[in-house]
């Protein structure tokens, strides 16, 4: 019984990270219909920025804030310079561009910071069954999801962003600056991605550190459904807890296989994810 509780708690803290990444993927998908493979690359550069800043100044939180800023700025640049030119082309073009960006960023990170792992601090104390750091992660993700919900549901900006995502041409006709909205979407998503990176990286940072987390982030987004923030968050926690239980009871070698099984089962029952509302039939 105690083991069960421990595994669940362990799953909750890794689930928070998956949820954050899933959120960021969801926003970009909602805004531009692109699955952003560059997300781990953007988050990686953000985290390395935090690493350098923290080493130089000794302040974790200064690094943290700058990581979010750099992450967001990179997202904005990526949208403007790379995604916009291919936006009107096939889904594949955008995937490939983001993939290329991922490779480029990982390569650049290796060039600048080397492939050796460096020590990377936790935001708060990491000790305890459910440590301050774990609580921070869960709270940060919860606040983010709630904030997104409020943003999308109740603010003019959110309304514009949704309109731009659903029907860009119509949105333009009612005065929405669609391009700006897409850029804002990428910016917000990349800030959240950077947050996910800051939560996922510790204790060590190296260029491939986010690869696995990213795969689970996509998995979480897919099983949760790319429709609303709660789907992504619930998908993240479901996956985190599920995989922790598999690792604890069945063995760590089965974790990736279990993720595959979960995806297959979920998608064969609900092809649009667990928490997507059944689609309104469009006439």
């Amino acid at each position: 019984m105690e083991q069960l509780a421990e595994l669940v708690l362990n799953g909750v803290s890794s689930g928070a990270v998956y949820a954050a990444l899933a959120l960021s993927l969801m926003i970009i998908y909602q805004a531009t219909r692109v699955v952003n493979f560059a997300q781990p690359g953007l988050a990686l550069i953000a985290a390395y920025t935090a690493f350098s800043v923290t080493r130089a100044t000794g302040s974790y939180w200064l690094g943290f804030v700058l990581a979010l800023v750099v992450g967001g700025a990179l997202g904005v640049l990526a949208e403007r310079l790379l995604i916009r030119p291919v936006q009107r082309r096939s889904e594949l073009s955008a995937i490939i561009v983001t993939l290329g960006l991922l490779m480029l960023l990982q390569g650049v990170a290796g060039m600048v910071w080397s492939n050796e792992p460096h020590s990377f601090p936790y935001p708060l104390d990491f000790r305890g069954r459910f440590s301050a750091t774990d609580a921070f992660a869960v709270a940060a993700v919860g606040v983010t999801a709630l904030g997104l919900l409020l943003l999308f549901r109740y603010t003019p900006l959110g309304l514009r962003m949704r309109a731009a995502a659903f029907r860009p041409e119509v949105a333009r006709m009612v005065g929405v600056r669609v391009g700006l909205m897409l850029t804002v979407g990428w910016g917000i998503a990349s800030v959240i991605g950077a947050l996910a990176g800051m939560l996922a990286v510790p204790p060590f940072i190296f260029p491939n550190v986010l690869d696995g987390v990213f795969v689970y982030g996509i998995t979480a987004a897919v099983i949760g459904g790319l429709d609303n923030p709660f789907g992504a968050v619930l998908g993240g926690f479901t996956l985190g807890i599920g995989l922790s239980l598999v690792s604890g009871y069945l063995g760590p070698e089965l974790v990736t296989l279990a993720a595959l099984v979960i995806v297959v089962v979920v998608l064969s029952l609900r092809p649009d994810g667990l928490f997507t509302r059944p689609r309104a039939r469009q006439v």
Partner: protein
Amino acid sequence: MSAPAPAPPALEVHDLVSAYGAVRAVDGVSLTVPAGSITAVLGANGAGKTTLLRTVSGAKAAQSGRVLADGVELTRLPADRVVRHGVAHVPEGGGVITQLTVEENLRLGGLWRADRADRVRAREEMYQLFPVLAERRRQPAGALSGGERQMLAIGRALMARPRVLLLDEPSLGLAPMVTRRLLRLLRELRDGTGLTVVLVEQNARGALSVADHGFVLSLGRVAASGDADRLLADDRTRHAYLGF
């Protein structure tokens, strides 16, 4: 200030050309729409009516030619700028965003305007104008019927308090009775607020019954134009282009 120049027309189009690849869907169209009028743009399927509206509103880029509203050059502006100059476009089918609620759709129409209080006022006016929308304000727009969607689309466009309203086939797919109500409403709006309406229609008889003027397009060019009554009375034009 010297003697006041005559007020410029609400909308002027000069030699407009708009193409899809090599196909010139609009091929040198010129027209003038007086302020406060209802103007019908008629023609068969594929005559270039929709492209004309889309090019005027900036949804599509023009190859050449000019578009002016109240004397202000709109030619190179994208759609989101054009609407800020008082030209609102209701696309074919209305373009309601089905995933948003009725109220969200409506609010969207006025969001670009800075005057918050007037945005709220405009919304209340729309609910008065279309009481059925008020009843269903919390429902997703996807749940509305065809006629209700048209009302929502028009209401959303009016939220911008435009001077010119471009309407693309509002009667498409609607029951005749609903269409008649819609057209009557346009007339009332024009009479009440001085709104200028450009109405693209395949239903020429219905459109001409409310319009002041009409233009007939054929293969991207203006084939005939004139007062609505005259066009209605002109058998040749009716038979050649309007099919009734």
